[in-house]
């Protein structure tokens, strides 16, 4: 059952009258907005929309939960600014709160950090129906518990986010991507390490399962030439230079996760299309030393994948002919965990899942009546 809300008061009321509920936005990550218990009310928050505060000189922005990411990006771009954590699935309609609840950062987080580094304030309705605030609207703030960070990755299970404040940064004026191919992902690892520790602040550092290393540079027209030469010298292999609209389109496709959708290369235009479940998209946090074993395991299972943020995360397509249990076991064997964004019915988190007594106790305070689904 879907209930639509367009005000905070309506959210509060919905929480109080529902025994079980889960907030949803544009549902661009269907595995996270799916419910197993048919009695669960899905609370559509897309109606809570709009930027309530944005002053470019402040480098901060506040918007309602359902505001589409593209709307934020357009407003920022008009002033040469951007969301440095580079949220994915914007073109598909992802919302601000959906992105926060899913805890998603994109390839661009290589430069300045992820979502948790840019969220500065949050408003949400807790499990008792109270409208509460955490953090604030200024870039630096140490007052009270850091509820904004807690909402990052909360999957709608700790409260219904109604508004979010973010820190933003000026965006590089020009971009260029260097592509170099290595025999395998593992073979590219040394180069990733050197770039990660090197002096150049990269806009993105990704690696495909085919061993294609993508190094995105940002600057202005003047510095880009120098950065290119230095990056190429570090990579040491022949690099293809990609510029202009082709370069932008390439990263847009990456943010849309097109290549990792089901149905092979015949990508479904609508990732929430549940008619053709053809595998699962999963996000796997890792560290660079964990790349080779994970790469081997994914390749063995026929799972297309992409490493991002300098080998801090893997995005993988787990084929439909492999069970989720197998995936979960593989991840656990490697000491890793994963988050499913879409695919067959099942739990959102797999493998080694964080939690423990601290999580249980905080959750008990936020949702004492268990109105939200289990994590």
């Amino acid at each position: 059952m879907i209930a639509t809300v367009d005000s905070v008061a309506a959210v509060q009321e919905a929480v109080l009258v529902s025994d079980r509920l889960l907030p949803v936005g544009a549902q661009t990550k269907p595995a996270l907005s799916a419910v197993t218990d048919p009695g669960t009310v899905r609370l559509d928050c897309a109606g809570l929309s709009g930027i309530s505060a944005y002053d470019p000189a402040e480098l901060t922005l506040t918007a309602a939960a359902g505001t589409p990411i593209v709307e934020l990006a357009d407003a920022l771009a008009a002033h040469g600014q951007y969301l440095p954590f580079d949220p994915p699935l914007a073109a598909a309609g992802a919302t601000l709160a959906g992105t926060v609840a899913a805890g998603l950062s994109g390839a661009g987080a290589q430069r300045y950090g992820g979502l948790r580094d840019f969220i500065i304030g949050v408003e949400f309705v807790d499990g008792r129906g109270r409208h509460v605030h955490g953090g604030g609207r200024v870039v630096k703030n140490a007052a009270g518990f850091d509820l904004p960070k807690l909402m990052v990755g909360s999957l709608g299970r700790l409260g219904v986010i109604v508004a979010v404040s973010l820190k933003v940064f000026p965006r590089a004026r020009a971009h260029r991507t260097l592509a170099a191919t290595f025999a395998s992902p593992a073979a590219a690892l040394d180069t990733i390490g050197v770039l990660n520790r090197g002096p150049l602040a990269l806009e993105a550092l990704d690696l495909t399962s085919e061993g294609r290393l993508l190094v995105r540079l940002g600057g202005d027209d003047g510095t880009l030439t120098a950065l290119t030469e230095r990056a190429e010298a570090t990579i040491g292999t022949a690099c293809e230079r990609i510029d202009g609209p082709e370069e932008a389109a390439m990263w847009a496709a990456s943010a849309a996760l097109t290549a990792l959708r089901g149905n092979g290369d015949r990508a479904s235009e609508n990732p929430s299309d549940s008619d053709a479940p053809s595998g699962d998209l999963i996000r796997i946090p890792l560290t660079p030393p964990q790349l080779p074993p994970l790469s081997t395991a994914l390749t063995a299972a026929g799972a297309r994948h992409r490493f991002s943020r300098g080998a801090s995360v893997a995005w993988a397509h787990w084929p439909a002919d492999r069970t989720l249990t197998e995936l979960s076991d593989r991840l656990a064997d490697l000491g890793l965990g994963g988050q499913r964004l879409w695919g067959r019915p099942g739990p959102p988190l797999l493998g080694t899942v964080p939690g423990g007594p601290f999580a249980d106790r905080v959750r008990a305070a936020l949702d004492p009546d268990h109105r939200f689904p289990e994590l």
Partner: protein
Amino acid sequence: MEIIAALGELGLGERLLTTPAALAAFSCDGLTAFTARPCAAVLAESTAEVVATVRACHATGTPFVARGSGTSLSGGSLPVAGGVLIALNRLNRVLSIDPESRTAVLEPGVINLDVSRAAAAHGLAYAPDPSSQSVCSIGGNLAFNSGGAHCLRHGMTANHILGMTVVLPDGELTTLGGPSREGLGPDWTGMFCGSEGLFGIAVEVTVSLIPIAEATATFLAAYDSLSAAGDAVSAIVAAGLLPVAMEIMDALAIEAAEASVKPRYPPAAALLIVELEGDRDTVAADTTALEALIAVSGAVSVTHTADPEERALIWKGRKSAFSAVGWLAPDYIVQDGVVPRTQLGRALAEVEALSAAAGIRVANVFHAGDGNLHPLILFDGAEAGALERAEQLAADILSMCVRLGGSITGEHGVGVEKRAHLPLMFSPDDLTLMGEIRRSVDPGELANRGKMLVPMAEGTAA
């Protein structure tokens, strides 16, 4: 006492301190306006000892306070009278550094600056740099989400903490987060950071490291008014530049710094320090752009340097500014309010007016890029009523910060000192929820009782 007997069974030997002198030495932190005598201090040397001590406290219902170097400016490590003080400064080993992952695993007593010293061999550094970085410890940085001069680009402590092992207030040991820069599930790590010790004690901390900047350029620009310096900051942001630090000091703060560490600042009503950092080509390009911006900003004089020793001296002057105020007055209260960056000029004018109305001198040192003010309210505690007048001025300044859309604390934390001001920022519901979270984690309110939130024992929550 029951707790002393329980601690006596832990085999701590001379590391269980109960003499009057030992307890006197631990009776306050960097905020000397508040003091309290614990009943015992434990110099822990292992996680097992921290767990055992916390369990003993839990079993006997005794409040405990963890402390690293005791440098809190908000009374964050003030003991609870009659409670147990757990000193973590001896837990100061860098357990490991993984250059491939750009992470380090630390004990909580590691001195902030020692992390960068240890990481330097790998070309890496630990970004957060509170002014007390030569003394303060990672555990305290984590508990209070410390900031520093370079937050503008690099963020605060919580942005650099990836995972931790913590002792919960009942002595249970648990792990939050992990070594990856990418998270999974709710950010429990982020929630624990800045919780001011109310959720327990971090005993092992995984931090992220950044590459040591290849190039820096540090600008010193002198202005004839604070508002002119503040306008320059806005102009720099508007131009799309992203310095790593933008700091302003007023004439009184400059005077204190010159009396103390003699940084040879130019004489000015307001001094703007701007630092650029990055690869050499970007820094060169940004230097040109910044020179042009400052040239038209009304600066009386401007210099910039890439020399490491000159840069170190500039920052030494800035980072010693709080303590250097000891040269100007016997006592001071440092405040930590934040205002939106565009409100800086207005906020400074209000501070000036409040200072004049109260007849109390205020020196200003602040992280201009973050809108984080540090008014230093000077007074002489020997004068009757002087402390109370200074505290009233501090309260007025904080109210003004919140009125302008800011915060009562940017980086020092609420502690005991700003507890009464928390309702300026948060609604009763907000504070009730925070109290409920606290008591869900720590029903007895034993961990750092009395900091940030008013405990049930003292009255209604929040």
